[in-house]
């Protein structure tokens, strides 16, 4: 018995030693800042003015202000539309579709599939800020590629970012992020043994049935994790939107991360900005619980 316990202890020590670098980094870059933001959300800390010199504890004032903030409802709605549009419909569905098509093409040795693979990947390996500027170059009213193209065709320019700002940022974020989902699903698809499909074919299952009855159930656990990952990442997106519309016009693309950034660093209200980010963190934790439960329930 003692030998077994000693063995477990030694194994646990090994696990702990293996985990400690990751735990240290998480504590340093995630738990620490999160706790700092939580503490800061109970103060009137600012970057300028008297509150910068002497920040005070204000209890729940920032939370009361936030939930009474008429813009906050709009910001949450924008965030939900952005996440559903660009993460769930855009990146997830498009990424899955691309993975299925590429998997099909690669299994049949279509060389063009490698170029498609590279093109999708290029969008992803670009730093977000560059992706943002690429889409600014596309949508810009005065010098953008789209309006230059329209001009050549003799068509009046369109104010893409003014007339459909949310659609524009959803398209840009989908373009940028679909590759991640595609890579994950492509990897997962490779692990499915081909004899499952052969057996299904013998049973007379068409492509739709093969996908629905065999591919999807196998992909479900990985789908839940992917959905969780891209939902959280999309919920925290702000560089791309900041570059494209900076939340405008009139709050139409102001999402929660951008709102936190604007309050803390543009309006210099660090305490209030921290409050917004704490709420954002809580919402993200909520998503995580829902997705993980969903994946376990169905797995």
């Amino acid at each position, binding site marked *: 018995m003692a030998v077994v316990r000693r063995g477990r202890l030694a194994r646990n020590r090994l696990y702990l030693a293996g985990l400690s670098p990751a735990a240290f980094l998480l504590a340093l870059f995630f738990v620490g800042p999160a706790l700092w933001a939580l503490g800061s959300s109970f103060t009137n800390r600012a970057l300028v*003015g008297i509150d*910068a010199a002497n920040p005070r504890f204000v209890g729940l004032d920032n939370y009361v202000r936030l939930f009474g903030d008429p813009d906050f409802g709009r910001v949450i709605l924008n965030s939900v539309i952005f996440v559903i549009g660009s993460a769930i419909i855009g990146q997830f569905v498009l990424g899955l579709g691309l993975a299925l098509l590429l998997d099909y093409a690669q299994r049949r040795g279509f060389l063009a599939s490698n170029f498609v693979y590279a093109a999708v990947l290029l969008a992803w390996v670009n730093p977000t800020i560059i992706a943002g500027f690429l889409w600014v170059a596309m949508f810009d009213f005065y010098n953008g590629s789209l309006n230059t193209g329209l001009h050549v065709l003799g068509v009046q320019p369109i104010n893409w970012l003014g007339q459909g700002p949310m659609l524009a940022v959803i398209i840009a974020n989908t373009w940028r992020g679909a590759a991640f989902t595609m890579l994950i699903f492509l990897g997962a698809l490779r692990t499915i043994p081909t004899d499952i499909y052969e057996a299904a074919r013998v049973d007379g299952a068409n492509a739709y049935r093969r996908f629905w009855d065999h591919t999807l159930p196998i992909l479900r656990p990985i789908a839940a994790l992917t959905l969780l990952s891209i939902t959280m990442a999309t919920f925290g997106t702000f560089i791309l939107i900041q570059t494209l519309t900076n939340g*405008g*016009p*009139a709050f139409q693309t102001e999402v929660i991360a951008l709102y936190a950034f604007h309050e803390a*660093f543009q309006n*210099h209200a660090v305490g209030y900005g921290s409050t917004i980010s704490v709420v954002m963190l809580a919402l993200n934790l909520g998503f995580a619980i829902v997705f993980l439960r969903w994946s376990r329930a169905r797995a």
Partner: protein
Amino acid sequence: MDEVVRQIITRRRFLQLAAASAVVAACSPSAVSTGSSGPGGSTAAGGSAPAGGSGVPPSSGGGVTGTINVSYPDEAGLKPKYVEQAAAAVKAQFSGADVKIDLQKVGDDDFYTKLLLALDSGTGPDVFHVGGSSIGELADASYIEPLDDYVSQWADWSQYPDAVKSGVTYKGSVWAIPYGLDMRWLYYRKDDLQKAGLAADWQPANVQGILDAANAVKNAKESNVLPYALYAGPAGSSGTADHAFVPLLWAYGGELQDSSGKWIGDSPATKKVMAYYQKAYDGLSPKEILTSTKPWTAMREKLGNGQLALLFEGGWVYGGWASADKAATEKNVGYVLHPTETGGPSFTIGGPGTCWYISSRSANKQGAWEFIKAFNTADIVGKLNAEDPHPVARKDAADVAEFKASKYNVDATAALEKAKFVPPDPGYSKVIEAIQKATARVAAGELGPDDAAKRYTDDLTQALGADKVVSQ
């Protein structure tokens, strides 16, 4: 509160007095004493005279050693040679001193945020260059050093008109040294207006006259010409306030603050401004202003090349057009003061411009001060303001040949006599935020003028507290 009110009153007189002295200086240089560091006197560049010119001995600070860290933003590229000239002068004067220059080629807003983060974390440069409107909020945050002891020993300080001194004074202390003062114009393209049937020397009879001219340009259907640019929303940055909302508010007889210092939200004038915005954004002003990054870049460029007919903007913007093509700018770009609703006296908006500050955490404050002195010689101030047109902050700089050679500089300096000033209240940055939200809502068509004016009160209340906001 009394102190605040007194401050506001003195600052409102700020450039009126400055203008009086500077106009005299610009128009009749010989009549003005140029002090000990006249245009040809102190040559900071050559290092042959002590920085700052006058009779202050080189060792007045007890000798300066060590590194002086200077940080400033510059996108236009006009300031670096003068900053380097001042640095060279300090190094020539104090052999033990070194000046490390951190030129940030970013916009003023980005620079300010970076600077605040550095100051907040207890680091940052010894001396830095940001807008004079930040004096209150920087002083309250204890980020900056009062300069009273320094200026009291600086003979050149006498060259600064009292009104300029009061413009950089907050809670009884001097906090920053300005080089050029801010003023604004309503610019118009003479060629575009003429094509629309208006006079080349157009002068709006009242505020509605701006919209009428813009409508005339629109109806003339000139290809590729925007009638009018009126800044709105957060994308317009502080220009949404200082170049659009605030002049309109004053034009309609409104005020930012009441006599007790409370910020005025909804008022008849605020509603009129919002209605003006609604009309301007009904096909006259481009909605791209709401989403473009730094929309002023495109708008300034368009006015310069004739693709925009009307724009209220900083006086310094003229320098960009003139340096690109002076003759064409003088021929085609007209400038007038902002009209009022009833055709009453037109006005401009003044301000202390961008100033040099010393960080309160600086380990080399004397060195930082020596740099400020070396930068603010009459020679550098005159030449820099000639290139980057602002009325000069010190009287004797108006004597510098390059500055007084330009009719524009003389006009801009004279316009300061009709300047109104934004209150130097540390809460103003929060007010700008509320102004940005309110104007964006109307410009994007989300709210009508009356609702937007009411929301403006709500936003002000949320940002500043109910006790600091009033509706009229």
